């Protein structure tokens, strides 16, 4: 059936291939992966918007999602076209310049899905003409990026057992990598790779060591079977080392470790996996035998820098447990660690980076006051590293605390497996109104010197934050918070240069891209996506 006047012999535009993903930093007009680049730095080379002209930012468009759920997605942008998933799994492809829709595809996850903490999606991955969506019912869905037609759809895990997928997959070469959520349901967590063309599983790495893995000895009895350790935030990748880095979550049951004696590998770890085979190269455990829910589900930030006079491949990690770490990402060797928030569960870190625990600070049946609280000193919100300022920027919760009490935990497939309860300190927030008191936690952006762990500056907010951070080559830093303000800060001093009130909590990472010579900044707030650029 021939179309008469359309020239079909015209070649297709360059597709997103593995090479473009590896060199994503060389095309700053686009945002090709969840973190912008494989290194997880969430840093943009675009510099049209500067500290001097940022006051002239204006709203260009708003995209309203048809969902009242949190909009946690980081969009992708490829050559002027934007791709994202609104909650729970509604994929939109829109014009990045105007916000108008090309097509949408709504994947309706099974009602068997039982997410612990919101029916959300944090985004997509792209390779060739195909988008990849990790669905709430623990399926991986491939979608034609031009038309919105589903290409394949495979089960990653059984949602009835509490498995879900909420994060953006990561494409590495010809594979699509995803991890699973469900740490509150006694799952056995894993990270798996699927053939990008067929959806066939290529490898699987269990984040809870089992039979055949020496790490199984770190689990009392058969507690490994329901050991949790979900992987619910996107990993990073070093093409030179061919290693994928991923953070893992808490062991299960969350707040009661009585029946899972041992370190509980590989919960609360950074794991380095061979990208082709999924074989474990090294691991580093931040919180052995965790009973505080300190998931290590942060973005691994990869930085090449001098360390004590020697060029090293580093990994920087601000952890939910309140410590900021620098590791050697070739070996996993601990290089340094410093607290960046008030904490009372550990006195510090030993030479190997293992926390020196405060013996009496553990969840008890009566309840124990813990700093930081179970939401952590930071959480899944993307940090940023600027190669220009050489500072690491953390979206943090300061002064957060909670009384945590352990309770008996009995495993029932698909049911909550927490083993405790918690009571927040007086925080003052009730719905839309916030009346903070001295004990209240607050949010801040911390600028840390990775070499020393010293704070260079802190930008305080009255309420806590859930927003990721973007830095740019003009030394700007964009971030938000639960109060709905979206800020541009001076990345060198922390001074506020501009803000907009978006009327909804920012719970996603900002991005920057360029279309027709103009730099844009996008951030989700509430259930909408907002895009700014300089006044015309």
């Amino acid at each position, binding site marked *: *059936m*021939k*179309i*008469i*006047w*359309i*020239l*079909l012999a*015209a*070649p*297709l*535009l360059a597709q997103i291939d593995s090479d473009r993903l590896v060199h994503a930093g060389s095309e700053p007009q686009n945002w090709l992966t969840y973190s912008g680049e494989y290194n997880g730095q969430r840093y943009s080379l675009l510099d049209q918007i500067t500290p001097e002209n940022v006051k002239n930012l204006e709203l260009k468009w708003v995209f309203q999602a048809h969902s009242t759920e949190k909009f946690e997605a980081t969009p992708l942008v490829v050559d*002027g*076209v934007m791709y994202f998933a609104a909650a729970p799994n509604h994929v939109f*492809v829109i*014009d990045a*310049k*105007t916000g*108008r*829709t*090309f*097509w949408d595809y709504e994947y*309706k*996850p*099974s*009602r*068997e899905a039982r997410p612990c903490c919101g029916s959300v999606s944090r985004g997509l991955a792209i390779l060739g003409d195909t988008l990849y969506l990790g669905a709430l*019912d623990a*399926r991986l869905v491939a979608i*034609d990026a*031009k*038309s919105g*037609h*589903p*290409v*394949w*759809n495979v089960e990653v895990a059984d949602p009835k057992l509490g498995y879900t997928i909420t994060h953006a997959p990561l494409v590495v070469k010809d594979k699509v990598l995803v991890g699973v959520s469900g740490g509150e349901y006694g799952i056995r967590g894993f990270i798996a790779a699927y053939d990008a063309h067929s959806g066939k599983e290529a490898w699987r790495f269990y984040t809870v060591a089992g039979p055949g893995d020496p790490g199984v000895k770190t689990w009392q009895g058969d507690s490994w079977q329901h050991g949790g350790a979900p992987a619910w935030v996107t990993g990073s990748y070093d093409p030179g080392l061919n290693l994928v880095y991923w953070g893992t979550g808490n062991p299960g049951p969350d707040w009661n470790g009585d029946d899972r004696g041992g370190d509980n590998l590989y919960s609360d770890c950074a794991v380095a996996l061979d990208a082709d085979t999924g074989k474990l190269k090294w691991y580093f455990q931040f919180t052995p035998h965790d009973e505080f829910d300190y998931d290590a589900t942060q973005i691994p930030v990869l930085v090449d820098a001098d360390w004590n006079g020697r060029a090293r491949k580093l990994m920087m990690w601000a952890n939910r447990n309140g410590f900021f770490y620098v590791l050697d990402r070739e070996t996993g060797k601990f290089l340094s660690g410093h607290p960046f928030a008030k904490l009372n569960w550990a006195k510090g870190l030993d030479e190997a980076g293992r926390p020196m625990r405060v013996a009496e600070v553990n969840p008890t049946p009566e309840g124990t006051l813990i700093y930081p609280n179970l939401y952590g000193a930071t959480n899944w919100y993307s940090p940023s590293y600027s190669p220009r300022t050489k500072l690491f920027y953390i979206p943090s919760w300061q002064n957060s605390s909670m009384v945590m009490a352990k309770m008996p935990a009995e495993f029932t497939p698909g049911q909550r497996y927490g083993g405790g309860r918690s009571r927040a300190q007086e925080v003052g927030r009730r719905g839309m109104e916030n009346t903070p008191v001295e004990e209240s936690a607050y949010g801040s952006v911390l600028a840390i010197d990775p070499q020393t762990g010293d704070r260079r500056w802190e930008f305080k907010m009255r309420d806590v934050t859930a927003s990721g951070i973007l830095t740019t080559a003009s030394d700007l830093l964009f971030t938000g918070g639960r109060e709905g303000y979206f800020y541009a800060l001076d990345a060198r001093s922390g001074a506020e240069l501009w803000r907009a009130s978006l009327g909804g909590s920012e719970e996603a990472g900002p991005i920057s891209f360029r279309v027709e010579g103009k730099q844009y900044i996008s951030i989700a707030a509430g259930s909408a996506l907002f895009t700014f650029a300089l006044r015309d």
Partner: protein
Amino acid sequence: MALKCAGALLCFSAALMAQSSGVELYRANCLPCHGEDGQSISGVDFRSGQFRHASTDEDLSRLIRNGIPGTGMPPTNLPDAERRLLVGYLRSMNRTAGAKAAGDAALGKEIFEGKGGCYACHRVGSKGSRVGPDLSAIGLQRNPAYLEQAILDPNATIAPRNRFVHVVMKDGSALNGRRLNEDTHTIQLIDAKERLVSISKSEVREYTLLTTSPMPSYRNRLSGAEIAGLVSYLASLTESQ
């Protein structure tokens, strides 16, 4: 039958009532999502007489009771008798929709992929162009009569989402494509190179929403058997993957 119906007239009335009740059940339970004629959900058309998740009446009844996990199709608590009425009505939607495909689907596939040149504009699964409508699940979306008409007379019915546009920009450049979306100020389309293109109307000199299809009629290009085969092949396309 005579004993149960006490005469042909009563039987006929009972049949009508059953159909009428099926309609009422359909309108109360199905119409809000599936529409009056059963084609409001993309990829689903009750008029096609084919169902992706069911083939027998029992399958359909079970599907109505259990819903389809992973989709927007919810379970219902309709009793068996009402589900049977509903199944009857769903089947009748196909009977009123027209002819069944009776051609040689294998021949049709050969035509589609060969001298018909259909892949040049249409896509089935992972093959073909995205410029024209995707036909991967056309058998679920259109009945054979509609498909035959579309092949013989492509201009007879063009769905709004399949309309093509011709755009001349103020700088004189021209663009053709299938319109995906349009508002007061912008147009989104997929062009001949399969690019997703967004156009500001303020930069447009001339904009034509074409009332004819770019697809030629195959009335005099294919034999009757070839057209029948093509219809059968298209009617057999029921998967979107």
